[in-house]
């Protein structure tokens, strides 16, 4: 079978399952060994195992199999659950992730060795198994059988457990067992047998076997009679469930019985079987049906759509001179096209959950490595964002979260000394408002120390000591993002912040967003990132240069001006524009692009661009229009091109490059 065509969906789904497992591990650590959590983990691990085995990735299948074993033991011995087991499970997930990465990159599992982690998983199983092994010697059926019984109990049914004793002279026990199974077949499902036929063939000394039957308990007598009729069977008897399931399991039995009773009561009260819940454990949440589509396919669709938009524009031109009916149809097509476009845009949006889901794990690990104690809270997981923007924000958020844990929060002892709760809180929230998405990272740490930041910046020569005295807090905090600030080695120790914050700001601004920081001494620090809802469509100003059109994102444009001779000065022979109470350097785009200046006679057409606090006057031949454009990537072949962030297709089908204003400063 050619499996390569399934590889993509295998990779995607496995990734999802690993992410789910990761989340559930944390839930396991937080809430203890709850049945719901473990059941969900089982499902995810089982799917992983099945899929990887089908795809022929045996190392992965084997590791998941052992992980299932470990999970099984945790589930069946909830009282023995140690949070330290979670570390082992997480390590296994990491190993699986690495395994999956290699499959993606190289298409094979060559050289993968899970030996170490398999041992750790085995230790989990053995560690918790040793007790039950002993118990099994005194009280009959082994752990595996008890586990199965416990599982059935949890599903709300009560199996009938039957002990079958072989006659001493019985030589072919396996055959007899098969006959027993055959005999009980008509009564109901046999959910578990111990030992199974193969084990019996191997073990001649076995004298008893156990069966767990899913039958009406009234049939017990008839069932036993049927078994006893099989020759060379000495005895058959019903075993009390309580003696089968471990002490901890007993509670479960009672609980399960109560639950079943309750469900039954409800069902009777309603008198309609349809009202009966399908399975007692399902929570009432109904999931929307979803379809997994590769982003590339949506992008292709988007391309076809933009072609359609162009064709529509031409049609509109033609229709101007046509009759009434043609104009009407054209208008209708225009409306349909734009709603199609909105629809595709919507498809590119994803809940931030998919970005956030990896953070709880990271924050957990950070607590351990940094020796901090904090609660990590995430809100607004359902907030939707453009996929491209989201992918780009991952690193920046990691930076901010790390900063919050490392520098924002005080060590637990310090917190206690200052009369704050020992455990801090780090909050990651997302929300949408007015065409923007906001991402917020907040801690309840010590806040930013204004004086330290200032002193450090003065020391680095970033600010002049005298002028800095009157600065507002906001101005001072802004220094954290200055590029010279973070590169200095000791800064993070002095100021408490500064690791790569300039990189974070760079990333955010390149996406057309903005980042701010607020801080209250002693109460904490909050970083707020503001991002456009989508990158795919952005408002832009179209300018002309030679015969070509270029687009400048409106976000970078401050105003448009016509410069006359008296507006212009020069500094060191470079022309500058007197603007408000300062001067702005003039950049001639024609010069910059083609060594062919476009400044001729006054007035010059200028676009005043801004980046942070800096400004620039771009001289162009003409300013054409301002409209919404579809941002298309230039692609990998041109990724070294710096002055352009992308391109767009104009109404007449020509391509216009989008100028990355930051590169012109």
């Amino acid at each position: 079978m050619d499996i390569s065509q399934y590889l993509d969906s295998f990779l995607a789904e496995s990734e999802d399952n690993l992410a789910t497992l990761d989340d559930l591990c944390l839930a396991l650590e937080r809430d203890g060994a709850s049945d719901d959590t473990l059941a969900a983990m089982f499902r995810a691990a089982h799917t992983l195992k099945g899929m990887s085995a089908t795809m022929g990735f045996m190392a992965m299948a084997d590791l998941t199999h052992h992980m299932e074993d470990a999970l099984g033991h945790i589930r069946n011995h909830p009282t023995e659950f140690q949070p330290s087991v979670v570390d082992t499970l997480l390590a296994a997930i990491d190993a699986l992730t690495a395994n999956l990465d290699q499959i993606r990159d190289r298409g094979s599992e060559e050289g993968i060795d899970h030996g170490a982690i398999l041992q750790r998983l085995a230790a989990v199983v053995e560690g918790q198994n040793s007790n039950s092994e002993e118990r099994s010697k005194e009280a009959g059926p082994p752990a595996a059988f008890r586990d199965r019984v416990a599982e059935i109990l949890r599903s709300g049914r009560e199996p009938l457990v039957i002990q079958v004793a072989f006659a001493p002279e019985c030589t072919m026990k396996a055959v007899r067992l098969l006959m027993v199974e055959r005999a009980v077949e008509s009564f109901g499902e046999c959910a578990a047998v111990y030992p199974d036929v193969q084990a019996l063939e191997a073990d001649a000394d076995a004298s008893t076997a156990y069966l767990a039957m899913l039958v009406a308990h009234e049939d017990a007598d008839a069932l036993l009679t049927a078994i006893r009729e099989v020759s060379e069977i000495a005895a058959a008897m019903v075993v009390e469930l309580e003696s089968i399931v471990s002490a901890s399991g007993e509670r479960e039995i009672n609980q399960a019985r109560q639950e079943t009773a309750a469900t039954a009561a409800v069902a009777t009260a309603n008198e309609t079987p349809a009202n009966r819940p399908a399975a007692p454990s399902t929570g009432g949440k109904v999931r929307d049906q979803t379809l997994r589509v590769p982003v590339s396919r949506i992008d292709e669709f988007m391309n076809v759509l933009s072609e359609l938009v162009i064709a529509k524009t031409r049609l509109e031109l033609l229709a101007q001179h046509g009759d009434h009916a043609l104009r009407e149809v054209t208008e209708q097509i225009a409306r349909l096209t734009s709603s199609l476009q909105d629809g595709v845009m919507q498809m590119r949006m994803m809940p931030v959950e998919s970005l956030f889901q990896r953070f709880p794990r990271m924050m957990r690990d950070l607590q351990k490595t940094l020796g901090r104690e904090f609660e990590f809270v995430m809100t607004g997981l359902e907030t939707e964002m453009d996929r491209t923007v989201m992918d780009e924000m991952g690193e920046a958020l990691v930076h901010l979260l790390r900063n919050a844990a490392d520098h924002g929060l005080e060590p637990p002892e310090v917190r206690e000394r200052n009369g704050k709760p020992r455990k801090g809180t780090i909050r990651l929230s997302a929300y949408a408002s007015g065409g923007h998405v906001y991402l917020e990272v907040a801690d309840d740490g010590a806040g930013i120390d204004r004086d330290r930041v200032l002193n450090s910046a003065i020391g680095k020569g970033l600010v002049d000591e005298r002028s800095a005295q009157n600065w507002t807090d906001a101005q001072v905090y802004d220094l954290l993002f200055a590029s010279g600030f973070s590169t200095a080695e000791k800064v993070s120790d002095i100021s408490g912040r500064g690791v790569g914050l300039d990189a974070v700001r760079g990333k955010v601004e390149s996406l057309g967003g903005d980042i701010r920081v607020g801080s209250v001494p002693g109460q904490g620090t909050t970083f707020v990132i503001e991002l456009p809802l989508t990158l795919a469509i952005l408002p832009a100003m179209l300018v002309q240069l030679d015969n070509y059109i270029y687009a400048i994102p409106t976000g970078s444009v401050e105003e448009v001006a016509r410069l006359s001779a008296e507006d212009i000065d020069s500094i060191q022979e470079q022309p500058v524009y007197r603007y408000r109470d300062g001067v702005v350097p003039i950049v001639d785009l024609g010069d910059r692009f083609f060594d062919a200046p476009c400044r001729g006679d006054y007035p010059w057409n200028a676009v005043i661009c801004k980046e942070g606090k800096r400004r620039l006057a771009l001289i162009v031949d003409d300013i054409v229009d301002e409209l919404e454009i579809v941002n298309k990537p230039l692609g990998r072949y041109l990724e070294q091109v710096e002055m352009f962030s992308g391109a767009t297709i104009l109404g007449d089908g020509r391509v216009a490059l989008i100028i990355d204003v930051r590169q012109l400063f």
Partner: protein
Amino acid sequence: MAQQYVVMKMGKELYGAPVMQVVSVERMMDITPVPRTLPFIKGVVNLRGTVTPVIDLRERVGLSATERLDSDAMRIVIVEVDAMLVGMIVDSVEDVVTVDESQVSAPPEVVGGLRAVYLHGVAQLDERLLVLLNVNRILSDVEVDQLREVEKRVHG
């Protein structure tokens, strides 16, 4: 192993690109120049909604820039390497031929000024020589070249 090649003409010579890597052959279209990039990168075109870079194959592989008849025969051959689409401008596109691997001989060090690294080999096609291109190499080396270009600008 026989392979099919799209036969492209540049000057008087014939060049072959593996048919598996050729996505389509387009007539010349409006090219938007990308300022400050390598000379052989002619710009970008709108290929059915995708912004696609276009290079001049002649300049790319180092053929002498002889006068090209700006005729209707000129084509843009769109090739795909590692999910990357690039158009190559050629004088004309002739045919698709099947070449058996056994007919291919190693390229000579220099063919008409063309750097041998960009060649897969040379095959005899009837009475004429078909120069088989290593398209992957032609496209992938661009990063190295771009870096060199930047360096040149920085250090003069």
